[in-house]
């Protein structure tokens, strides 16, 4: 019961009522993951306390510009826990100022982390978790089996796999965050390991696996076929093994693969522009993906800085973006369009001109493969449940995966 409560809370926080504000506290990381989109990581750009404080003062003193009911203070890197001292100061100051200002976000806030988990056990991190436990969400990224994980998630310089240093912290993390989900990223080389990796994560006690293919154009000829085969095998394993009752995998969702109405399903997929990020230089971005360290081809999309505030003109494109205006006709006429995601930052980086109005379509074949496997999954699962007389009960209690895509 307690676990279910946490899951529902998590969804509520992601329902769009909360403002997501991200501190890029460092652009350094212990790892050099091969699929990482952060092409400009470095050890120099660490946020100072002065920058963080000025940013907080700016945000909290412009309450009218941030009407959202709640806030998620997000910390990202590189690896955010490399800057645990700074983060602790930031969180203390946020709590203090939200209280002093009687800000509408006081008691309606969360601190959120996506970590590689390597120093999760360290005393400073644990002390921070203890102090902020009631307002904390932490996701540890583990990609699956040791082989799959170490294929990509390797230490910089030595290129040693990081699996063992992460997996040792999983029990502690799950004890502290029993509903914790992990984020798995699939690139071309990872495809053969999908099934065993998801099952491995389930075996570690992780009940929610949020798994995505990368948006970048990395796919090889035939990857879609291999991907489909892996997903079919995963579908069989989840259904035959009964995992569908207590575990979730974001690859399989009933909303996937339906046509989208051009008028009523015209929303932008991505939340860029509704979020706010700040980096060590004090520059503000519509999302972390628009900071220079995330971009291969384009210039950073800076929407302001901590001294002058947000230039609202530079947010206008994001707040008026819709699906039709940025999609090509193949996407518009696609009969399995629902659930086909995009990242606004990757769209911008891959576009022929510096625009967010050109949708990248590198994942098209992979989405189609996923839809076919998804159809198979639900057809097989529902037939099994019907034969067992359990479909109604399942539909009443079924768990849904986290729709987060980035």
């Amino acid at each position, binding site marked *: 019961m307690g676990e279910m409560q946490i899951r529902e809370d998590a969804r509520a926080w992601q329902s769009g009522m909360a403002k997501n504000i991200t501190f890029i506290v460092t652009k350094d990381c212990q790892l050099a993951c091969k699929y990482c989109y952060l092409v400009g990581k470095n050890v120099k750009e660490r946020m100072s306390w002065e920058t963080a404080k000025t940013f907080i003062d700016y945000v909290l003193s412009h309450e009218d510009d941030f009407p959202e009911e709640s806030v998620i203070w997000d910390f990202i890197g590189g690896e955010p826990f490399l800057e645990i001292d700074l983060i602790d100061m930031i969180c203390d100051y946020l709590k203090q100022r939200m209280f002093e200002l009687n800000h509408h976000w006081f008691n309606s806030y969360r601190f959120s982390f996506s970590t590689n988990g390597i120093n999760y056990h360290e005393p400073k991190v644990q002390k921070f978790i203890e102090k902020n436990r009631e307002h904390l969400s932490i996701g540890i990224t583990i990609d699956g089996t040791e082989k799959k994980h170490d294929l990509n998630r390797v230490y910089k310089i030595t290129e040693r796999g990081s699996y063992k240093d992460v997996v040792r912290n999983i029990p502690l993390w799950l004890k502290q965050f029993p509903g914790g989900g992990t984020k798995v990223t699939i690139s071309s080389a990872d495809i053969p390991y999908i099934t065993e990796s998801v099952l491995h994560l389930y075996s570690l006690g992780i009940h929610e696996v949020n798994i995505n293919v990368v948006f970048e154009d990395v796919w090889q000829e035939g990857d879609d076929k291999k991907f489909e085969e892996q997903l079919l095998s995963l579908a069989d394993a989840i259904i035959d093994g009964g995992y569908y009752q207590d575990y979730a995998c974001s690859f399989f969702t009933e909303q996937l693969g339906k046509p989208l109405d051009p008028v009523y399903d015209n929303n932008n997929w991505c939340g860029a522009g509704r979020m706010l990020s700040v980096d060590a230089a004090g520059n503000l971005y519509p999302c972390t993906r628009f900071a220079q360290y995330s971009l291969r081809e384009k210039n950073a999309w800076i929407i302001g800085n901590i001294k002058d505030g947000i230039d609202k003109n530079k947010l206008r494109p994001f707040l008026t973006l819709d699906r039709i205006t940025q999609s090509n006709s193949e996407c518009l006429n696609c009969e399995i369009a629902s659930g086909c995601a995009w990242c606004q930052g990757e769209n911008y980086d891959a576009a022929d001109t510096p625009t967010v*109005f050109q949708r990248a379509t590198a994942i098209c074949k992979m989405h189609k493969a996923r839809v076919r496997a998804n159809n198979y999954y639900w057809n097989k699962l529902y037939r099994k449940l019907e034969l067992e007389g359990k479909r109604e009960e399942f539909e009443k209690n079924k768990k849904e995966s986290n729709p987060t895509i980035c």
Partner: protein
Amino acid sequence: MLEYLIIQLDDTSTSYCHYEIGAKEHKLMPLETLKAGIRFGMLENLMIQFVYPDYKLPDDYAAAIESIDHNKIVSSLCEDEALKAEADVMIFHEWTGLSLAQLDEKKSYVLRTAKADLFDRYLFLKDVISKVMRLNIVITDVETFTEEDFEKYKQILHILSEHIEKAYVAGKSPQFNILTDRMMLEKMNNCGAGISNITLAPNGKFYICPAFYYENEEDCVGNLENGLDIKNPQLYKLDYAPICRHCDAYQCKRCIWLNRKTTLEVNTPSHEQCVVAHLERNASREMLENIRKHGSFMPQIEIKEIDYLDPFDVREHWDEELLQQELIKYHQENY
């Protein structure tokens, strides 16, 4: 559809719009490039608009230019008096020159002005409007408008509209872009850069408009050898401008260059550009109503009363259905 080719004859060709030519030195378009540009215009069936520098061109250039039907855009500061007499559009960059000029009632003029000068000297425009066929005002720092500036501009438009109203009642038809254009229009009539017109620079390369050339020469969209190569061409079209496609400030220049400068996207106008255009729209509406008090006038034109100055502010209420059907149709025809 492309209709116009703008040829910048020299790097110092006069600015006729929001952009500044900056510190460019004389660099005349090579004669062969000019001839190739004219040939391109003929082959593509484009009306050519030549933008002149302030010095007299060599005779062989004049001969090439006269080989094709065209318009001449010339600065009031041009040394070539004969050329000025032939100009189709004359550009003034400051108010004193305009006050001293011999104005021709059959000609169109452009006054490029900073907002501060406009706010100080706008009453002088009454006289100019009465003496010319058409006067276009280009506010060169529109992106710097503040709330206080908006209020001043609103008052200025109101005062000038009273003057124009009297002229119409007296049977005249002055054309003054910021007040009379909207009451003549039933659909968007924007600058059209990248859609109805394209610019050929002295280096033989094409640009969306001269401003793009002056900002960054690398920002070209093709050249005379290989033709036009406009990436994401749909983004210059009205249907692909989420704010503008909901707007009825039809007289707005919808400046693509200012859009990119202020919002980083060619299809998204700034708040300032939208509010200025709506102040003009509303002043035109008021003026139209006042003219109609004297008798029937332009009955087919309807400018609705609205309660916003920036369509972005009412985006939650946009009626998307019809527009999206148009978009889908466009997609099917063009992709």
